[in-house]
């Protein structure tokens, strides 16, 4: 039974909600509505006059082959990053969950990458794999691999994926570890007595009991790859080569900020917003049903 609290002062509940509401309005609803409004306008080359053009920005956007390409890039990029960062983090968390002496040190080391700003992480990875200077690029080239993320589209994609995954693993690791530790030890012991070998135990007991955590991380990771990987892409490849790593969010920036097409860029961000809202809604509706408890 939920207990409902009755406030004697009618103003108090609103005052308590106010800080959160102000933040949401100022930092979300206001910019979002600005973007929607902007997406119906076209500015002249000098930014002096804005003209209402209706859906023209959207029509132009969906006529662009590059836009479809950025969508495909986003799908590939986000699937790879979400899948890899979740599965690697889960693997690490299951290892850290064992009763190892070095576990605390291991956990601390695992968490560090999360404290690195995305752009800094991007620069780190850029230098490590820079074809002529990078300390990891040189051995790769030495092994006869023509490693060149500056020119090769697949190499560039691999590099941004690796950097984004590396950045996100710590976050996922923390949550997976907490999730693993909240599974009662006796349930695991009962399954051991019930004859389940470690691998089977993982898939039939641990993984299903971890599903609330996995679901939460899936939502968070999708939002992460759609938006927060911007800094990494900007620092590592700048969307190149030849637009191979231009995801949708990067294209919003490239067209609006670098290309000066504010209306088109606003239209893109509206589309992006709709996609993310839709994805999250789908996840809540369909995936959560399969989640235990």
């Amino acid at each position: 039974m939920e207990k409902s609290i009755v406030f004697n002062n009618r103003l108090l509940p609103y005052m308590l909600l106010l800080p959160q509401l102000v933040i949401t309005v100022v930092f979300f609803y206001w910019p979002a509505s600005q973007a929607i409004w902007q997406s119906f306008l076209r500015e002249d080359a000098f930014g002096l006059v804005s003209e209402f053009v209706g859906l023209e920005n959207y029509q132009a956007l969906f006529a662009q082959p590059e836009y479809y390409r950025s969508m495909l890039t986003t799908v590939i990029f986000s699937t790879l990053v979400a899948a890899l960062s979740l599965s690697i983090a889960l693997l690490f968390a299951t290892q850290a969950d064992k009763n190892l002496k070095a576990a605390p040190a291991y956990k601390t080391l695992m968490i560090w990458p999360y404290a690195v700003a995305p752009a800094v992480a991007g620069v780190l990875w850029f230098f490590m794999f820079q074809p002529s200077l990078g300390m990891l690029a040189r051995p790769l080239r030495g092994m006869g691999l023509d490693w060149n993320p500056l020119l090769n589209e697949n190499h560039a994609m691999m590099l941004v994926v690796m950097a984004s995954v590396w950045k996100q693993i710590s976050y996922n690791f923390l949550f997976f570890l907490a999730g693993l530790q909240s599974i009662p030890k006796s349930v695991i012991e009962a399954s051991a007595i019930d004859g389940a070998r470690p691998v089977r135990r993982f898939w039939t007991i641990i993984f299903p009991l971890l599903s609330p955590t996995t679901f939460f991380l899936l939502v968070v990771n999708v939002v992460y790859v759609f938006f927060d990987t911007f800094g990494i892409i900007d620092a590592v490849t700048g969307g190149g080569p030849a637009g191979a790593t231009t995801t949708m969010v990067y294209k919003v920036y490239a067209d609006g900020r670098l290309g000066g097409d504010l209306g088109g860029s606003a239209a893109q961000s509206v589309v992006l917003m709709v996609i993310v809202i839709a994805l999250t809604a789908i996840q809540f509706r369909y995936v959560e049903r399969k989640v235990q408890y």
Partner: protein
Amino acid sequence: MANVTLRNVRKTYLGGFEAIKGIDFEVGDGQFCVLVGPSGCGKSTLLRMVAGLETITGGEIDIGGRVVNQIEPADRDIAMVFQNYALYPHMSVYNNMAYGLRNRGMAEGEIKTRVGEAARILELGAMLERKPRQLSGGQRQRVAMGRAIVRQPKVFLFDEPLSNLDAKLRIAMRVEIRKLQRRLSTTSIYVTHDQLEAMTLADILVVMNGGQVEQIGNPLEIYQKPATTFVASFIGAPPMNLMPLRSELKSQLAGDARAGEAGIIGIRPEDFVISNQTVSGGVALGLTVEAIERVGAETFIYGTRQQEMQGVAATPGELPPGEIIVRIPGAVGPSIGERIRAVAAPDKLHLFTADGRKRVGG
């Protein structure tokens, strides 16, 4: 069908702490063995060592003629019922019971028969499709039992399985567990800190304290002839009255051959009679009544001895020094502040050495 034999079993943790200090006992085929002791005495650790959930650092555990020290829990052919039931929360009752059978590659048809049979015995038939969270505490407990019996293991292990239930249900389940065990005649080891549970369930009772066995035997034998003052105060409720054998008490026992070696005398509350007569060779205590508990069928009288009392070395469950409990049948009795004489016959006296580690005489 199997015996379980423990030979000088030890458990030392990495830091050097010795949780189990060399334990020997044997549980015969089909017997119900109860390990009882205060919390921290090592009884759960010992059970988990039999299950294979804790490593054995010394000695041998033998199940059905096979030393299992290095054998995985899954291969020891045991089933365990945990204190918090440890049901799989994401599986239905049916799947909870079928899980262990599926892991062993049993055919679905056979699984269905076995789970159906267990559900019938435990009256879970109507709940097979439910999830554990939709069940009451007693039903969860029965599912945990069902999960153990479908496997038809050599040994059942119970780790305080009733301690999460309310008092009434606990008594009902206690009877059910005993009936079930008789019916299946599967060797069982049961851990509890509740001496009443221990007395009522056990064929063999193992009283543990500080990682060691204090006494092993038939429950009534242990009640009647406790080997140490620890056992004397732990088994039986309210606990046995223990007093140092000195001055006036000693002179009352002058004719008793045991009195020379003994340092502590124990008398169970139910062995006192309130009387003005003296029993030859027995003990009479003058008491001032401090408190009275009337529970209907019997009455507990808490009194202080009129002579000043020096405490015996305190053991768990023991009374504050000088306080004596007398248990008399019926609801009548003295009133508070009254002076009474509590008398015990010679055959009701338990005598122990001064350190409490040894029983003197029979």
